[in-house]
């Protein structure tokens, strides 16, 4: 038995640190595992979540299923990390794709940006002139 697994009446309980695996990661891994096991989540102190697993197939080995769940946690942790790292690039690619389909949108976006800059400059000038009067 893995040292982090606790066997309780057909269930395996494992403690997952939320500092290592975020809550969305735990939910995502649990969701994917719903066809293989019953999953129950419970807080385990301030920084851990206890994940209780019971295989749906009575012939399946609970410890093996729990180990597979740990693999899935790692998979989703990597997925969410990559998603976050690539978010800006994905946004740029989508914008390019959108603007290439409708070039007039580029002009509109540029005009709006110029108007926003002009407003910002006007506000700064007002602040400066206000300070000078004092």
């Amino acid at each position, binding site marked *: 038995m893995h040292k982090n697994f606790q066997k*309780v009446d057909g269930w395996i309980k494992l403690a997952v640190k939320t500092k290592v695996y975020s809550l969305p990661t735990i939910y995502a891994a649990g969701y994917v595992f719903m066809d293989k096991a019953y999953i129950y989540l419970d807080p385990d102190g301030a920084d851990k979540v206890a994940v*209780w697993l019971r295989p749906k197939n009575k012939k399946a080995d609970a410890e093996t299923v729990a180990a597979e769940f740990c693999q899935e946690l790692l998979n989703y942790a990597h997925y969410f990390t990559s998603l976050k790292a690539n978010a800006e690039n994905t946004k740029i690619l989508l914008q390019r794709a959108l603007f290439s389909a409708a070039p007039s949108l580029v002009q509109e976006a540029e005009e709006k940006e110029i108007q926003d800059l002009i407003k910002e400059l006007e506000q700064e000038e007002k602040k400066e002139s206000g300070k000078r009067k004092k």
Partner: protein
Amino acid sequence: MSVPFLKKNKGGYSIKFPRSLYPASALLQLKDLYADSDMIVKEKGRYLELSSSSWTAEDCLAVCDSFLYCAKHAVQAK
């Protein structure tokens, strides 16, 4: 099945869920799913206790599945 979150009552079984991990929006969705059942929801401190006079232990586990599904989507929607 002597796990701390499953309990056999005089009539049927009950299962409790921590409110911090199974949010209120997920509970609303679960209630929709179980609208035709006689599910009773009680607040017991930091936990919600779901029970029904007709539920077996296996029925409680099916609720566990459904609630995780609802919780996952509720967290994703945020």
